[in-house]
């Protein structure tokens, strides 16, 4: 690990002004610093900031502080009752030890698990812009099939963010000048495009202070994660679904996908095609056709295309059961 200067932020407005890389749970940043994939000159420890509460909002939703751990969030009675898909996604991620450290803000900003990104001797446009992409034509079993570019085919590895996408969450931030803004999660992460090293719309020094969930609209909530082992593995494909039924028809459906793209994926056309329809295998196939219309396999990950179809269909069958 390269040496760095260490500072502890005493309050929220000071954090950005300390002009360093934020460290929260450290479970992703320190992992990457040990490999010198990341080498910040200064770390700003934000763990003492008062951002560890889950508060009710005026509109009946919840504001989740950026430092709320993945464990505390998954176990919160309000999340378990009204946002089951989020609790399920968190519990499907990492391990008990990691969830006790991993924070809401850090989880959103965790970096890809692409093996070339993790190995400094290999070319990687995300780690070293312009050096090429080892995964294209290389080992790419875990890589993306949607929204890729010829610069980078990495996926975003988070489970939590996929559920939050289906719940239409908003990210609250504070910039270094003290101003605040709200970013809908759907606009928060970027596709890789020509600049895979830029992963979100955050500005340098911009601190995530909270993630807001709108009032729960109920519905059947399902999170399904397909992975290489039954526990403690990243998703190959995951689907988060919130589906509201009305008299045997789908009143509305919100779906988000993990393991398929550089960001938690959502497709409004797919959701529109389900709206007002009676559930059937043919309808679910049509939904999968829409999702996968532009899907592109990279060789080793070709299996993700049929796997995404089957996972989506299974989740829709489950989420459209009952009223």
């Amino acid at each position, binding site marked *: 690990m390269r040496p*760095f200067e260490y500072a502890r932020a005493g309050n929220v407005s000071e954090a950005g002004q300390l002009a360093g890389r934020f460290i929260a749970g450290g479970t992703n940043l320190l992992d990457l610093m040990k490999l010198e994939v990341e080498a910040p000159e200064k770390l700003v420890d934000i763990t003492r900031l008062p951002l560890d509460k889950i508060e009710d909002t005026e509109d009946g939703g919840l504001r989740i502080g950026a430092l709320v751990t993945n464990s505390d969030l998954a176990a919160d009675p309000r999340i378990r009752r009204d946002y089951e898909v989020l*609790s399920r996604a968190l519990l499907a991620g990492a*391990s*008990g*030890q*990691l969830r006790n450290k991993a924070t809401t803000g850090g989880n959103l900003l965790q970096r890809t698990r692409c093996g070339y990104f993790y190995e400094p001797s290999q070319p990687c446009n995300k780690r070293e812009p312009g050096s090429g992409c080892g995964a294209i034509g290389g080992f790419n079993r875990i890589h993306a099939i949607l929204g890729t570019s010829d610069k980078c085919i990495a996926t975003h590895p988070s489970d939590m963010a996929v559920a939050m996408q289906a719940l239409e969450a908003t990210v609250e931030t504070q910039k270094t000048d003290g101003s605040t803004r709200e970013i809908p999660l759907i606009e928060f992460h970027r596709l890789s495009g020509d600049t895979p090293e830029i992963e979100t719309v955050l500005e340098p020094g911009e601190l995530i202070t909270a993630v807001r969930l709108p009032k729960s609209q109920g519905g059947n909530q399902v999170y399904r994660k397909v992975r290489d082992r039954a526990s403690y593995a990243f998703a190959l494909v995951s689907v988060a679904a919130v589906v509201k039924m009305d008299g045997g028809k789908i009143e509305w459906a919100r779906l988000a996908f993990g393991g398929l793209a550089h960001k938690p994926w959502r497709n409004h056309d797919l959701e529109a095609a389900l709206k007002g329809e009676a559930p059937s295998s043919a309808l679910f196939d049509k939904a999968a056709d829409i999702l996968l219309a532009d899907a592109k396999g990279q060789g080793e990950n070709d299996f993700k295309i049929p796997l995404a179809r089957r996972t989506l269909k299974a989740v829709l069958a489950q989420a459209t059961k009952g009223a």
Partner: protein
Amino acid sequence: MTTLKINGVEHELDIDARTSLLDACRDHLALTGSKKGCDHGQCGACTMLVNGRRINSCLTLAIMHEGDEITTVEGLGDPDNLHPMQAAFLEHDGFQCGYCTPGQIVSAVGMLGEVADGWPSHASADLENGATLSGDEIRERMSGNLCRCSAYPNIVDAIETASTKLKENA
């Protein structure tokens, strides 16, 4: 100087900011019970309790833990006075080489605390009403601790026994 409170004792340490909590204990305080398996959060051999919650001590900086109550396997019990979890691992032969064992034991103690607090897991059918500790629940909740010797069946038995003992003692 960094002050760390480990197993109830305060230690003043002059350490590089890069030092992980694991290395601080092993290399600077001769607390070598916690093991380094992977150094990347993947194996659980380094598990410690921080303020009662289990974490991977290899993926956190020692300087970030001033003021915290840290417990290592040495703090759970000693050979003359074993913690019920340590005794249960001996009774059930919950190991072969023993390298993962301190992490397994500390993790299991942390895990039982989570169950007592009503935390659900990926294996829980019902999210809202807590969980009873079945074999499936133990296997899921302990998935962050790998055992290269694959002593898993005996580890699960040991945790079941210790869980019953601890409930009786409570």
